[in-house]
């Protein structure tokens, strides 16, 4: 049984002129446990919306999302929050670290709403990403590459079954991007987490064995996919 199964997923938003604008219409998608899949997607193709729907941040208009045997599309917001806190790790293009929190506190925060804070595990994760000497540094005291490594550690803090990465290398130079991507993939593998990464960067996509094209998955932007 796949870790993630999506069927007939639809999401639309209201445009400023009041009309409904469908941004996502995915008939079927699945992801196996511990798999690592890259989704190619350009701006405006709904890749962030897709990840937000899987994470339970957004609720679909129609369709079904089953994650680790739980139909999260049928859950209320409270239960979706709980599911996200315990099952999903999220890596953002802009890192989204909390500026008032140290590296260690950011990682601890990643586990606080799920399994509960485990200081030793948080320190081990930061050591794994090479920041054992930056535990008490604030994000502003780190380079962008280091900030992304904290974000990776935070995404794995709740021992997720699935890590979602939204353009995780978009703000990094090519050397840091390569290192970050390698780190993300290795860390997910070591922690037994599946990885679903979206990007428009050919270099990034080229490093994945499995790469899918969102334009083909999403009927809302690609009549061909119908």
């Amino acid at each position, binding site marked *: 049984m796949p870790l993630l199964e999506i069927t007939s997923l639809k999401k639309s*938003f209201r445009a400023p002129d009041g009309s409904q604008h469908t941004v996502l219409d995915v008939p079927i998608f699945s992801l196996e446990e511990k798999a690592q899949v890259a989704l190619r997607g350009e701006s*405006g193709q709904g890749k*962030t919306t897709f990840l*937000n729907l899987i994470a339970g941040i957004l609720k679909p208009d129609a369709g079904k999302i089953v994650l680790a045997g739980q139909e999260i599309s049928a859950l209320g917001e409270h239960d979706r*929050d*709980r599911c996200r806190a*315990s099952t999903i790790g999220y890596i953002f293009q802009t890192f989204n670290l909390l500026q008032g929190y140290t590296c260690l506190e950011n990682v601890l925060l990643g586990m606080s709403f799920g399994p509960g804070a485990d200081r030793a595990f948080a320190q081990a994760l930061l050591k794994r990403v090479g920041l054992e000497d930056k535990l008490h540094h604030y994000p502003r005291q780190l380079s962008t590459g280091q900030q992304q490594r904290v974000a990776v550690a935070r995404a794995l803090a709740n021992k997720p079954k699935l890590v979602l990465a939204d353009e995780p290398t978009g703000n990094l130079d090519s050397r840091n991007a390569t290192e970050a991507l390698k780190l993300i993939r290795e860390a997910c593998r070591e922690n037994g987490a599946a990885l679903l990464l979206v990007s428009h960067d050919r270099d990034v996509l080229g490093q994945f064995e499995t790469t899918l094209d969102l334009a083909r998955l999403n009927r809302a932007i690609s009549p061909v996919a119908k």
Partner: protein
Amino acid sequence: MSLFHIVLKSLRQHLFSTVVTAASIALAGGLLMSVWVVKEQSRATFTQVDGGFDAVLGVRSSPVQLVLNSVFHLESSPGNIQVSDFEEIKNDPSVAIAVPLAVGDNYHGYRIVGTTPDLFTKVELAPGKTHKLAAGRVFDEGYREAVVGSFVAQRLGLKEGDEFHPHHGFAHDDDHEHEEIYVVVGVLEPSNTPADRVIWIPLEGLQLMSGHREEAENEISAVLVKFRSPIAGKMLQAKYNQPEGRLTLAWPIGTIVAQLFDKVTWLDRVLELIASLVALVATASILASIYNSMNERRREIAILRALGAHRGTIFSAVVVEAASIAALGMIAAFAVYGVIMGVVAGIVRAKTGVVLEPFAFHAVMLWAPAALIGISALAGIVPALKAYRTDVAENLVPVS
């Protein structure tokens, strides 16, 4: 990372506004508690001050003025009565003690009161407690000797053996110095009563002071009276307080002081209202401060939500933050209260001799912090609702 940690982080991140709003709560809370304690403790303390007497006999006048002049040594004397009036009430079988008072002179603004040694030897300020001397002895009748109240001794540096010239009137005036020289023979221990602010001399000393009217020789200002039983007060009140009488018996002293406080109840209400409004404005400042910071916090809230925080957790964090600011403010409010009460108690003691106890427990010390923290938490609901409604996807990253 508990809710407590998230709140603590937010307080530190917004340190300036936290300190400013907590300070406004501290001032408001300190003011609120001070107003209540001063109001209630003043009433309780002043109505208990009777100098060990039940009543004051004086010239036909307001009982309040008689009590203020004879017991609290405030206000001007409403006029004099005859020595024979004193003799008459002193010999009344229902009267246990009667002590005459004569006023009209001062030394450096402190009132000089003529009386008899009975005031120090027979009158009990409280059961079994008479005036005690810290140094020296009680004056002898017929001599130019003085016993000085503790507060006067402290302020003027008077001690046993010191000499001084009385001045005429209740306010110090260099041009109205009497020629007589009095010598200090005793200093009273603090009694925490208006007697601490008085210089006591023999009755005849004041009656015969140079420059006083000749008639003053046979006059006194008032008589302090202690009854053998409470029923005597009613009997003598009926006797003296006749429509055409020339004397007034002010009895009972505590009730008359309470009537004075009743007359200024409106002032209490105004002060309560002002203090309460200040407190409300302070709690509103918490609302404004957190509400205004909500725009900059939206991204942070979205990140917390993306990490799995429930809307309820975010809502609670903001409410607890508002309550925490108020709690910090109320801790500091006790320092503000201490300063205000220290100043007020000092002024009250200097002006009346009555000692307030700023650090005695009062219920306001419980309900004022509870009320301000509670109202602040309620005020926090407004920004908390804004936080609760924060759209995660919209504030996390732009929708592609």
